[in-house]
């Protein structure tokens, strides 16, 4: 990874001598470790975008250079990477990182140095409550609160009255428990059980029997990766007939592979890009989604795209527009003033259409997504070819 970064640096220096100095953007992603399945498509997307923007002649005539660091899904390494990018590489802004805990740890060094940052992690705590430090931090992925809304609305539409929750006993599951239970209460649903299980569990019979004893009309499973297959399979084996919901953490092909027939009929919220080809023609993100997936698959292979790369695409869509506006007002040689103006311009982002929704930032809202465009409900179905796939069942426009 370091080798690549140095290589890019050398290339950038070469180009820089020939023309103008490049605009240096720092990137921290989790390209290895447990977060790798998210971090790799993010990195791939940014490499693709860097290539494209420089082929088009750069931003306002200046080449763009991404300095990409891998934090190995580790909090300490993320902080070290951020410090290096700020002090040694003197970047204008930082994109990243992939996971919530590492992003939260990066807030301090970033705010101290006054560098604008666009995070690719999900949790709402990254940008709320707004304070003097978080004014430098922005993010692109939907929060649990926003993803809870479509689930609750879909439950209401299916006449669900009593609902049970079972989620990971870690930050992901607890975050969902809090967000979903609040949203459910507001919509008048009864949360009759709230259980936990661990990613490493091999049996959840106890929890599932407790849930079944409460007779819920629907069950939401709050987990990511492939581990949420287990509670769902146990529910099916115990003869549960109600609706089963999952979170967008399972919107990956591995979940379908491990789940097999047990996960047919699962309903989950997801960014619109997951089912881009099924979106109605007027859907605001459809064109962006199609062109992004086309470019990504042209470079990395058919079927290689994932929703996570879309968050990196959105971060650059916001940042590049803000950079163009800033370059009209300020010179990058005046580093501190440039970073500060760039921050103001990111905050002034209005109507940027990304792969996951339309971004309208404000001083209070550093995400700027509305769930109406940023989430759709999908269902796991068996396609005519016998494989499992995602089917769009509801949009919220």
């Amino acid at each position, binding site marked *: 990874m370091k080798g690549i970064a140095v290589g890019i640096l050398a290339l950038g220096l070469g180009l820089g001598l020939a023309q103008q100095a490049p605009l240096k953007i720092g990137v921290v992603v989790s390209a290895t470790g*447990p977060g*790798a*399945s998210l971090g790799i498509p993010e990195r791939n997307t940014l490499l693709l975008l860097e290539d494209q923007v420089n082929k088009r002649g750069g931003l306002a005539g200046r080449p763009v250079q991404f300095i990409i660091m891998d934090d190995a899904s580790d909090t300490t390494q993320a902080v070290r990477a951020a410090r290096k990018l700020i002090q040694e590489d003197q970047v204008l802004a930082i994109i990243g990182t992939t996971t919530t805990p590492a992003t939260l740890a990066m807030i301090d060094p970033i705010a101290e140095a006054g560098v604008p940052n666009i995070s690719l992690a999900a949790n709402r705590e990254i940008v709320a409550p707004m304070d003097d430090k978080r004014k430098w931090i922005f993010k692109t992925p939907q929060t649990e609160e926003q993803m809870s809304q479509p689930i609750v609305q879909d439950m209401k539409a299916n006449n669900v009255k009593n609902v049970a929750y*079972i989620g990971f*006993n870690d930050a992901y599951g607890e975050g969902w428990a809090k967000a979903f239970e609040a949203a459910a209460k507001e919509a008048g649903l009864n949360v009759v059980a709230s*259980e*936990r*299980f*661990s*990613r*490493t*569990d*091999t*049996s*959840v*019979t*106890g*929890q599932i*029997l*407790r849930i079944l*004893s409460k007779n819920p009309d629907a069950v939401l499973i709050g987990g990511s*990766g*492939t*581990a949420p*297959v*287990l509670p769902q399979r146990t529910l099916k*084996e*115990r003869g549960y007939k109600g609706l089963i919901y999952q979170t967008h953490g399972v919107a990956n092909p*591995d979940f379908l*592979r*491990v789940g*097999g027939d047990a996960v047919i009929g699962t309903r989950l919220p997801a960014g619109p890009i997951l089912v881009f080809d099924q979106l109605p023609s007027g859907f605001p993100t459809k064109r962006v989604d199609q062109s992004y997936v086309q470019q990504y698959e042209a470079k990395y292979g058919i079927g290689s795209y994932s929703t996570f790369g879309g968050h990196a695409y959105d971060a650059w869509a916001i940042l590049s527009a803000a950079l163009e506006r800033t370059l009209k007002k300020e010179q990058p040689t005046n580093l501190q003033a440039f970073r500060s103006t760039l921050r103001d311009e990111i905050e002034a982002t209005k109507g940027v259409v990304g792969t996951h929704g339309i971004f309208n930032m404000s001083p209070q809202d550093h995400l700027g997504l509305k769930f109406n465009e940023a989430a759709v409900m999908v269902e796991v179905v068996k396609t005519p070819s016998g494989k499992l796939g995602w089917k769009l069942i509801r949009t919220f426009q």
Partner: protein
Amino acid sequence: MDWTIVSFLAADAVQSGTIYALLALSLVLVFAVTRVILVPLGELLVFAPLTYVFFLPSGVSGLELHGQIPGTAWLSSFLLLVWAVLDRANPSRVARLVVLALLVLGLAWVGARGVAPWLGWILAVLVVLPIGPASYRLFFQPAQNASVLTYLIIAVGLHFAYQGLGLVFFGPEQYRLPPILSGQTNLGMVPINNQAFLVYGFALLTMLGLYLFFTRSLYGKALRACAVNRYGARLLGISPAQAGYVAFGIATLIVTVSGMLLAPLISPAYFQGFLFGLKGFVAGILGGLVSYPLAVLGALAVGGFEQWAGYVSSPFKDALVFALLLPVLLWRSLRSHEIGEEE
């Protein structure tokens, strides 16, 4: 909590308890003979089924592996080759080890090209099996006569190494394996997966086999002699090193076959072995790490307690299981005979 729930929980408790029992038996066996608390047994439990994934046709596993040789085969033959280097003073053994190392790679290559499922099943066990005895030769035998604590530290280090390698070899996600027996049988109103009966059958077979081995066979009696008194055993011409290989070999065989039988019921992933190993260890401790029958009872108790804890208070399930260790350790330390510190 009514009868239905109790019987459902009991069915699951027996299933996980049986696996803990098999692990506990292997742990006790290894500890009695070599004084090693073999923490990485849990990793060996998942290595075999994850290796089996590479031998399945892509229609069954859902993966495109293109005849790739699983990392465990490289690890296995690498350990055997290092063993050969360590034993270079003994040419005939070197020759046997090198042949074995090549054989492991050959079997893995054949398996990865696509074979009948039953053959792939056996190949997966054979590929993983040498890792156990080779680990003993490479990591524990050089520290001969070390204290139990030193062995434990080595074992924990080995656990981290094998778990890390598991992540490299197999990636972070789970896999789905086809069961040997599909479908369910109803016992009363409780449905039990037919595959689980294979696990029970293997557990009974293991217990019977170990009993016969230790009471009837000369090898078994030699192992017991080693467990009771190493010096005395050596005086009678029993090699403790030889006993170590046999103990590690039997333990690895028990654990790999258990893993293969269990895998279709749990969707294995690289990280799952450790908790099985730890709970098997708790079960072994309940039997004082010396008694086989007590270890089996302890394992069933751990399985039952775990299901109950999952039902009553799921966020604290694992914490409650490991908290079970505290009163037992306290009680045992009050009436201990300094197990393992003699010699």
